[in-house]
């Protein structure tokens, strides 16, 4: 396997190395990825999960042939390669409502649906050839974030925090925000769960409006009173702990109370963007606009989180499920997400955080190039769809993989969700093949059976 992608030298970078060592000392049965001479790049990840499935042929995978075949059946030369998956309609090819144009120096084409993102194409590495077999939202979401449709393996966020440990002991290291969870697209808990990894690597779901729960003192409790409470608690716990078996666990709980105090300071500070962020920054994300507000707050918080060392931020924006009238659906979704995400890219860049922050934009699948029924929408299609990565050492302005003339099935460089998970870890300087956890006698890795890092994402 190529070793040209960046790897972190664990024990050289003091802050991160130490916390990783702490992780290593707590856990048994695990092997951590080790060293390489190259400079580490990404320290944090922001995963922009577009729930419902954005259409590849309307965003990042232009297909002029759709016009040629408009209204016709999918030609046999393409149809025969489509796996036998329900929902893969073969009738009535539907052209995109949006024109594609090349952007930036790289000339990466983006549709007119996403004008703000288009300005950043030179930062994006677009992968047009992601595929898997599951055409259903719930299991598809699990595939996207855990690699398997039953969601029983660790989420990529859990693997990442397991590998790197905490970057800020005063905040949870993996936080998930779910915005626009409307319709029936309920978030899948597996997306921030740990599978067989220890529960401490689980993501915490945060409401962007209210922040981390219970970080405010209860009504009527003043700070001084809390100090008295904690003092008494310390006295009682100390008494209880002495000479007891299972001292480590008891000690860990005592320590968790020391952390509550710090978290009660750090969390409100993190969520207090309203008075601390400049008007220009707020405008950049589109905070003031009704359409963009929710995603904008999540993205701005995402930046504030990575700034403070939160390892993995997951922002789930629901609503992309365009079965009927894709024009209005995707227009709405773009208006919710395009500007805030572009704002996040700009903001990270101007603060010098883009190099140390990996951004991933992906849905659970793409959509059919055909019309579903007569509703002017597209059905689910996991046969070949587009995602992008940016920042964190990723080679921008690049396009990887290819689909057929209609954008239906991958024809070149198939990429599985396990592959892009491996690539996320690689960007964090972790060798996914050597990141393992012993579960039921097997050394489980994030690669599962055959995932592999996509080296082209990094090579210059």
């Amino acid at each position, binding site marked *: 396997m190529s070793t040209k992608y960046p790897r972190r030298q664990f024990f050289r970078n003091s802050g991160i190395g130490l916390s990783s060592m702490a992780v290593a000392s707590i856990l048994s049965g695990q092997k951590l990825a080790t060293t390489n001479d190259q400079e580490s790049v990404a320290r944090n990840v922001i995963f922009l999960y577009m729930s419902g499935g954005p259409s590849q042929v309307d965003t990042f995978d232009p297909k002029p042939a759709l016009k040629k075949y408009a209204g016709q059946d999918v030609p046999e030369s393409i149809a025969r390669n489509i796996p036998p998956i329900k929902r893969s309609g073969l009738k009535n090819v539907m052209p995109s409502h949006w024109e594609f144009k090349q952007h930036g120096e790289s000339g990466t084409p983006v549709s007119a649906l996403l004008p703000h993102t288009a300005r950043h194409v030179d930062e994006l590495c677009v992968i047009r050839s992601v595929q898997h077999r599951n055409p259903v939202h719930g299991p598809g979401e699990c595939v996207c974030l855990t690699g398997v449709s039953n969601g029983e393996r660790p989420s990529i966020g859990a693997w990442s925090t397991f590998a790197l440990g905490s970057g800020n002991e005063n905040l949870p290291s993996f936080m998930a925000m779910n915005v626009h969870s409307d319709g029936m697209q309920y978030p899948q808990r597996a997306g921030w769960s740990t599978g067989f990894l220890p529960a401490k690597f689980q993501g915490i779901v945060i409401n962007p409006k209210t922040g981390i729960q219970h970080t405010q003192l209860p009504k009527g409790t003043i700070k001084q009173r809390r100090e008295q409470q904690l003092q008494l608690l310390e006295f*009682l716990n100390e008494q209880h702990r002495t000479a007891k078996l299972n001292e480590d666990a008891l000690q860990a709980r005592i320590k968790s109370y020391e952390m509550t105090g710090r978290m009660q300071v750090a969390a409100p500070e993190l969520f207090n963007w309203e008075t601390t962020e400049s008007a220009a920054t707020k405008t950049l994300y589109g905070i003031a606009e009704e359409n963009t507000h929710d995603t904008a707050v999540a993205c701005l918080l995402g930046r504030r989180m990575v700034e403070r060392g939160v390892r993995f931020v997951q922002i789930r924006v629901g609503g992309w499920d365009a079965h009927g009238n894709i024009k209005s659906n995707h227009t709405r979704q773009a208006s919710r997400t395009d500007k805030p995400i572009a704002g996040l890219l700009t903001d990270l860049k101007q603060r010098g955080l883009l190099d140390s922050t990996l951004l991933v934009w992906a849905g659970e699948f793409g959509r059919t190039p055909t019309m579903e029924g007569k509703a002017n929408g597209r059905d689910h299609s996991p046969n070949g769809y587009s995602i992008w990565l940016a920042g964190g050492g990723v080679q921008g302005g690049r396009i990887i993989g290819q689909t057929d003339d209609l954008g239906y099935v991958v024809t070149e460089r198939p990429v599985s969700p396990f592959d892009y998970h491996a690539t996320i870890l690689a960007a964090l300087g972790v060798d996914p093949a050597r990141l393992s956890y012993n579960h039921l006698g097997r050394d489980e890795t994030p690669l599962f059976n055959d995932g592999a890092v996509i080296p082209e994402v990094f090579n210059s």
Partner: protein
Amino acid sequence: MFDKHATRLSLMLAIGMIILSISRTLEAQPPGSFQLGNWKQASDSVQALFVIKGNLTRETPIRSAITPAIAQESFYVSYTLMYPAKHIDTADNGSGEFFILWLDDTEGNVSSAHSNQNPNIGIHVDKNSKNRFMIRFSSNRQEFGPELKGDRETQLVAKVSKSNPGPEQPYDQLELWVDPALIARDKPNAKLKIENARVSSIRWLGFSTGGKTETEDRITVGNLKLASSWEELFGIVPPVTPQAPPPLPKPVVTVSFEDDVVPILQRHCFKCHQGKNETGFRLDVADQVLNQTTPFSSGTSHLIHRIQATDDSRMPPKGERLSTQEITTISTWIDEGMRWNEELFPTPTLTSDHWAFQPIQQPEVPKQIPGGKPVSSQRTVVDAFLARQQKTLDIIPNPLADGTTLLRRIHLTITGLPPTPEILQQLHHLPTEKHQAWLDKEIVRLLNSQQYGEHWARYWLDIARWAESNGHQHNRFRPDAWRYRDYVIDSFSSNKPYDQFVKEQLAGDELSTEDEHIIATGFLSAARYSGNDLDKQIQRNDILNDVTNTTATALLGLTMECAQCHTHKFDPISIRDYYRFQAFFAEGQPGSVVLAEARDQGPALITEYWNIYDRTHQRVYRELKANGNPEPIYVAPETVSRRLNGADKARFSQLEKEIRALPKTWGWYSTQTDYLSLPVAPHLMRWPLERERSALYQRPTYLLIRGDVKSRGPQVSPGIPSLFFQTPIGQKPRTALAEWITSRFNPLTARVWVNRIWQGHFGEGLVRSAGDFGTQGTPPANQDLLDYLAYELISNNWNTQHIHLLILNSHAYRQTAIQTPSSYKLDPDNHAWWAWKPHRMKSEMIRDSILSTSGQLDLTHGGPSQNITDASTRRSVYLEHRRNTPSYVNEIFDVPDANHSCVYRSQAVSPIQSLYLLNSDFTNQQAAHTARQIQQEFADLEIQMEVAFMRILARRISLEEQPVIARFLEKATLQDLCLVLINSNEFIHVN
């Protein structure tokens, strides 16, 4: 009904029309071929009533030909009859009412009797002069049903059959039902069989009056129906012919395994890959070859990739490569289905010397421990086994803990709740030396309490991955799933023998259709599945995998899921074993099953519901099709209910309401039962499971290559993994599986269960890997002890309580938690159980204990779940348990996601938990409650302190603590103290 009929009746009389229509659903009858014959003024109207008046003489005012004639083995005939009450005469002189529907092979005329050994169904007077419904062949061959009641429409149903089938054989049997419920199929009101029957085909039928039928009598008949089956009479589509999945392709076989393939294997491969060999891979074993190939698809077969490879992965690694011709032969063999000769290369029987797969022997109880032990350290046989182990390590177990500590410990591990101050007082009134004996009794009391069932049920619900929603993104609620939760609670509370408990859960519906048994199948039906999957094969396969994996982990402690894709890497379980095991469940699926008390009205409501649903579905489908929508056209249930037309809409929502109100359970139904013995109510979602039981019939199970439902290997039938002793399967596969699992010879079941009982008390099992008794699990440090408990369980009729008592009365359970330095040095992980290891309470225990100490806990038993957002103070086990959306406290305190069997909960520690316990409304309100109650009861501050400790920590305040707490209360409140106490490690742990 009566008024309506009366109106219509007078109307018909007024216009002088008599109309009768007949519906006929006999088999093999092309629609429209049936003719009404010479009914007077026959019409194609759907009017179904006909009024006959008497003439004080025997006559047939109305008759009809049946074309073509009926000669099949049996059929049903049904009509409704209403007799005016005022015209039912009290019979005297043996003379009474007479009215019949006759069936005959001749027409006769108006005055023909039609009672010459041919079927009659109607009313007549019995020998006690009562007018009753009856069936007869002739005047001296008749049987009576219930008494005739006037002024009400009564449905008469008769089954007419031949005891000897054949077109020439006569109809010689009659059965009668009067106003039958759908469920009464096997319970007729009267039965009759004669010797000298005459009529072998029915060509005519008619209604006849008798000599007693007065001129003013108005007999209303109608709704005449003929049907081949009981189901048809009720408008229920009977199970149709089994629909097997499309057969595997049958290619022309051009390559012979024996003549073409084997020589190539011998030439290139067998040198390394035949028989037991160093590579660990055998090419002479079908199951292992299947791991490397995909039948019918050489292109995706690893084996082909390896023999084609040009890099260092090529096979064979050294020597001559396979020729292009040879590779083509192997590829063709795979593409033609990979035929195998089992006689030439039989599948070897898997064997293992792994400890957990060996029979459970009764270990000899150590009689004397060499060197002697203090008697006090042996309370039950458990201690004798541990003493032997401790002796080898030169460890002395810790002394007994004090009564107060133990009181809290037994309450928590048995019931999940702390002891009340009152119980604590009882203990404290006794002299110390009597404490242990008193605890022995307290343990028995607790094990027989409802609270024990509620606490231990929670462990089992984790094991059964039980939840009240479908899971995946729509995550539909399963409103009836709570009954299984109560079943589990009651099973523990009543100390149901473990073998019976297991059998009911695996095969309840095969045992009986009693509610308890049906509810028990909630174990199988707890499976998660996506309600948004159009691919029924995938949807079903997900359920079957879930049930298979759960059964293996929950009951056998095996991680079979690995073998779903490939023969198990570590355990002797092959991919074939996996799918044979899965085949036990293949003919069933989850559903909302109607309980006994509603089984008479349920089917009719459900059938009517589906009838409306189906015709609307058809209509919408046709409209979409007519609008030019391309196939496949899917019409979702929500579209159907939105598109109901006017009349249907009201009726449909009424039906929905009535069906919702039926008592039901979320259970498992299969081909073992039918819609009458076990009706299933709709459970709608975007793309529901296939509705018809017929979809479940004889559904073959295939070995799935790499677990992919689209890559079918050979067909398999239900069977026990070949490693273990085998058992005949018979007609009830799941019963056979349950019998095998609960057989006293099963090496795993009892070991796995006693280990979990141990774990429930100690926090860890004798086998630490409670979910994996396979070769990758942790072997028990004291197998004799484990086997002793397992043997005790089996030989005491699987009495779970017996095992609890052996454990709870042991010294091992009752010792202190002191980390004795000498022992700790020798055995820091406490493998020899020389000390009690404090462990964190489960999420539910934390919440319930807090509510208990504040006096707010509502101990109501059972019933539908409480919404988690309401401020319910019921025990946590009664709060809604949906997948994906746990309560906040469950989310942060490691409650499993119910997506797969969980036999051991992780115990993470995080500041998020501490923030919750310090700052949440819940903990602060409960602390306030507790404080208020104490203050109301006691004015003295010192007593308040004392009581707070008693209530929350279940102990007295110590002398060291008193001054510290007193100082604290100078600045803070009693509520603050209560909050601190529920945050303390002592409270959160089982000490």
